[in-house]
């Protein structure tokens, strides 16, 4: 009799709730579980990558080499970039896609749940392998996250092969995640949810997913050519054997530039969800937002060589890539104007998601401005490979990708866990972060313009003031994100956080808000009707 009851309970679990213990997470095919895994993995990587950044900033605090040897410094810049790009930002966005896309389009789950599980569980293996290289003879990869040949091929440390295999795995994971998003969005929308009714987060992720499946194989090709150059006697990137080191850069940036947009488009979608909610006013120019996103994605394939103006490209090439790059400012401008127009004449309140979203718009735009400047090839000869570039891409990545993700977490967390975070603590987190992020990255514009090159462990004394400011800011920024963890912990597991309503935010619209908070384990078992 008791056996029967036991079996009944088990049966019950299978259908209405998650399994228990470690195997729940290992075997899960549930989009919410996998979304949480992705997000926590990303947060862990974010802290590890941040730790590497703090080693860099500690060494750069004052002129002279005090803490680390130059070769270890180079390992830190390399791993910081790789971990943040492939370990923090990309998995965070995939985690958000997993949690949100089924709820937003009225589906019960992602279309390919087993592949979903696999695409996540590859990642800890890939990063375990990459990070283990720190403990190998010769140290970790030390050639920058862009791993230009021949520094990475002929001169790379033995651990470069682990790096190559790790990149392959990350690529496979990203491609599977992208396929899952595309298949889900194309096939599992609720009746009435036409493409032009999809929330912008779904749109931006759909476009991102196409970028991913187009460029990740190119990256795989680049590292494979590296591998054969290192071990099997080919000379793809070696002039002595008829190859060309600059071709490596063309292949890398053909992946790398769309990759930059992979790391920002989902944030565009997040801002387009949050700003209307807190302005209590519909998003301005929905259709133009979709077209602008698609244009940015299209243009991203024909601008890659603006990373290579100093490599000795022919004049015609420089002109083409300069003009195409400048064009990107047009659709990006449209998006910024649309967000401002959404706020215009709204009835705004400034809860944490809105604060982070507004900071995203402003600081991302500042990163966009320096982007236009960098597009101008004659000026780029002066900016290229200096801290001005470092300032530029950190302005689009930290306040862009990371603030976007933080805004999303505050915005949807009550829906995910059923509890409200502390608005007071979140506001402290916001103001602390906004000051620290600007203190860290704004002075880099100046040190770069004054002539400080990137990726150096020591510098001339004229750059000392700016570097000290950046280092102070960076440590502040790091501490602020530990505080973010405390807020999350208190909300999810603290037990005292107030319960959230289904609607959560007064002005929120969309299918996810029709579900109770926390959202049930299976989102929409009956498709909702979209008018």
């Amino acid at each position, binding site marked *: 009799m008791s056996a029967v009851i036991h079996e009944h309970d088990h049966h019950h679990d299978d259908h209405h709730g998650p399994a228990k213990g470690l195997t729940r997470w290992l075997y899960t095919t549930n989009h919410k579980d996998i979304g949480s895994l992705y997000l926590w993995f990303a947060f862990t990587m974010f802290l590890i990558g941040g730790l590497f950044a703090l080693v860099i900033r500690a060494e750069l605090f004052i002129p002279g080499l005090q803490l680390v040897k130059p070769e270890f410094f180079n390992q830190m810049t390399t791993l910081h970039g790789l971990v943040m790009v492939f370990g923090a930002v990309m998995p965070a966005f995939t985690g958000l896609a997993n949690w949100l896309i089924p709820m937003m389009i009225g589906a019960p789950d992602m279309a390919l749940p087993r592949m979903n599980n696999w695409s996540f569980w590859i990642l800890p293996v890939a990063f375990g392998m990459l990070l283990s290289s720190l403990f190998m003879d010769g140290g970790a990869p030390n050639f920058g996250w862009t791993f230009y040949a021949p520094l990475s091929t002929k001169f790379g440390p033995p651990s470069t092969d682990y790096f190559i295999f790790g990149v392959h795995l990350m690529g496979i994971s990203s491609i599977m995640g992208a396929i899952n998003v595309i298949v889900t969005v194309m096939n599992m929308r609720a009746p009435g949810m036409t493409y032009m009714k999809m929330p912008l987060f779904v749109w931006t992720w759909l476009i991102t997913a196409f970028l991913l499946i187009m460029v990740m194989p190119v990256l795989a090709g680049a590292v494979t050519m590296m591998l054969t150059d290192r071990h099997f006697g080919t000379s793809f990137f070696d002039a002595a054997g008829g190859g060309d080191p600059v071709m490596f850069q063309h292949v890398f940036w053909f992946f790398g530039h769309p990759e930059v947009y992979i790391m920002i488009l989902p944030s565009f979608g997040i801002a387009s969800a949050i700003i209307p909610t807190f302005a209590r*006013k519909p998003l301005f120019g929905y259709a133009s937002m979709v077209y602008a996103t698609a244009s940015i994605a299209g243009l991203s394939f024909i601008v890659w060589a603006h990373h290579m103006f100093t490599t000795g490209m022919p004049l015609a090439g*420089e002109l083409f890539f300069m003009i195409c790059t400048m064009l990107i400012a047009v659709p990006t401008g449209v998006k910024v*104007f649309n967000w401002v127009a959404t706020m215009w004449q709204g009835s705004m309140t400034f809860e944490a998601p809105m604060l982070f979203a507004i900071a995203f718009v402003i600081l991302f735009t500042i990163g966009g401005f320096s982007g236009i400047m960098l597009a101008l090839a004659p000026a780029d000869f002066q900016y290229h490979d200096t801290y001005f570039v470092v300032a530029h891409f950190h302005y689009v990545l930290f306040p862009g990708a990371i603030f976007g993700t933080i805004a999303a977490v505050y915005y949807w967390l009550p829906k995910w866990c059923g509890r409200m975070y502390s608005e007071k603590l979140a506001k402290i987190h916001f103001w602390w972060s906004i000051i620290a992020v600007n203190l860290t990255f704004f002075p880099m514009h100046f040190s770069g313009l004054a002539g400080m090159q990137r990726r*150096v462990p020591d510098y001339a004394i*004229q750059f000392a*003031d700016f570097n000290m*400011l950046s280092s102070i800011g960076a440590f502040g920024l790091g501490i602020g994100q530990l505080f973010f963890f405390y807020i999350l912990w208190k909300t999810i597991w603290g037990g005292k956080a107030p319960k959230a309503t289904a609607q959560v935010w007064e002005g929120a619209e969309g299918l996810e808000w029709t579900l109770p908070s926390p959202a049930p384990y299976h989102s929409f078992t009956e498709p909702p009707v979209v008018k």
Partner: protein
Amino acid sequence: MSKQWYKSGAWLAAMLFSAGAGAETQFNMTPGVTDNAHRAYDLHMAAVWICGIIGAVVFGAMFYSIVKHRKSVHPKPAHFHENTLVEIVWTVIPVLILLGLAIPAVKTLVAMEDTRDADMTVMVTGSQWKWHYKYVDADGKDLSDIGFYSLLSTPRDTFENYGGKTTEKSETYLKEVDKPLVIPTGKKVRFLVTSEDVIHSWWVPAFAVKKDAVPGFINETWTKVNEAGVYRGVCAELCGKDHGFMPVVVKAVSPEEFQTWVADTRTAMAEAKKAAEADVDRVWAMDELMKKGEEVYLKNCSACHQATGAGMPPTFPALAGSKIATDKAQIPDHIGRVLKGKGAMPAFGAMLSDMEIAAVITYERNAFGNKTGDAVQPKDVKAAR
């Protein structure tokens, strides 16, 4: 070199940092000392102003909205969500602004890439972690006998401040070299840039010249310096461990002074050659070799093999106790390795004299606890070349 403040109106936030910054702090790009550098600077400033104005308008509208359209002030939100005319306007205006930036950018770029009709040519070769300058010709006259390496002259002791050490750092810290490149003012100097190992990038901010040195390929760039002076730059492309320690220093002098410099350099080279020959003929005592050897070692070898000879295995092998540096039978291999290089080890044959190589090999065989007692003489090195 001028140390004035370059004011840039758009970077208003610069003011925020001025309190903590020293008098020499430079916030902005240098306007430089060539026409091309001036044009790059003007383009940069135009872009700064345009971005600043657009930023002021967009962020101004946003902050106005944040103040005036908050719920406590503006409780009833409007409901508009599109306006075709407005959307067309804010698509077209940026296109026009960008066009306004693109036209001068294209003109400047065309001018900068025009390497024709140069008065003189210099070959610039990067290698880990130094530059080599070889003069090709000037005003039709052959200068190809003049060539030299240019190395960082800040001693490693000054920047290796591990263990709480502090050192005095000068204004030119990490921006000084033993032998700067010397070029005449008012002449169009063409640079042929290449590399022996990884990609480097030769950058002199005052000239707005930055060109990658790509192994196996030769890139062209040029400059025409208007004012005499010493101009300092760096290697801009990550090229390994000591990427931060291979500065570029260019001394621009009047054409007359340049002629004098060429003559002096030739005299000095002839004397050095004579001295080197005399060095080869002489048999050197152990302590002389050791003294010279230590000097050569610290300048050329210690970056990788370390002052202690411990190296950084597996990339840079140890010399202390290594077979090649202690086994008598391997003396010829040791000489050959220094002369011709192997893998990541550069060839020093062209860079160091027979005496210097003999001295450094002797040093390596008798320092770091390698007590072989072997004294290698310059004639042994000469014979091995």
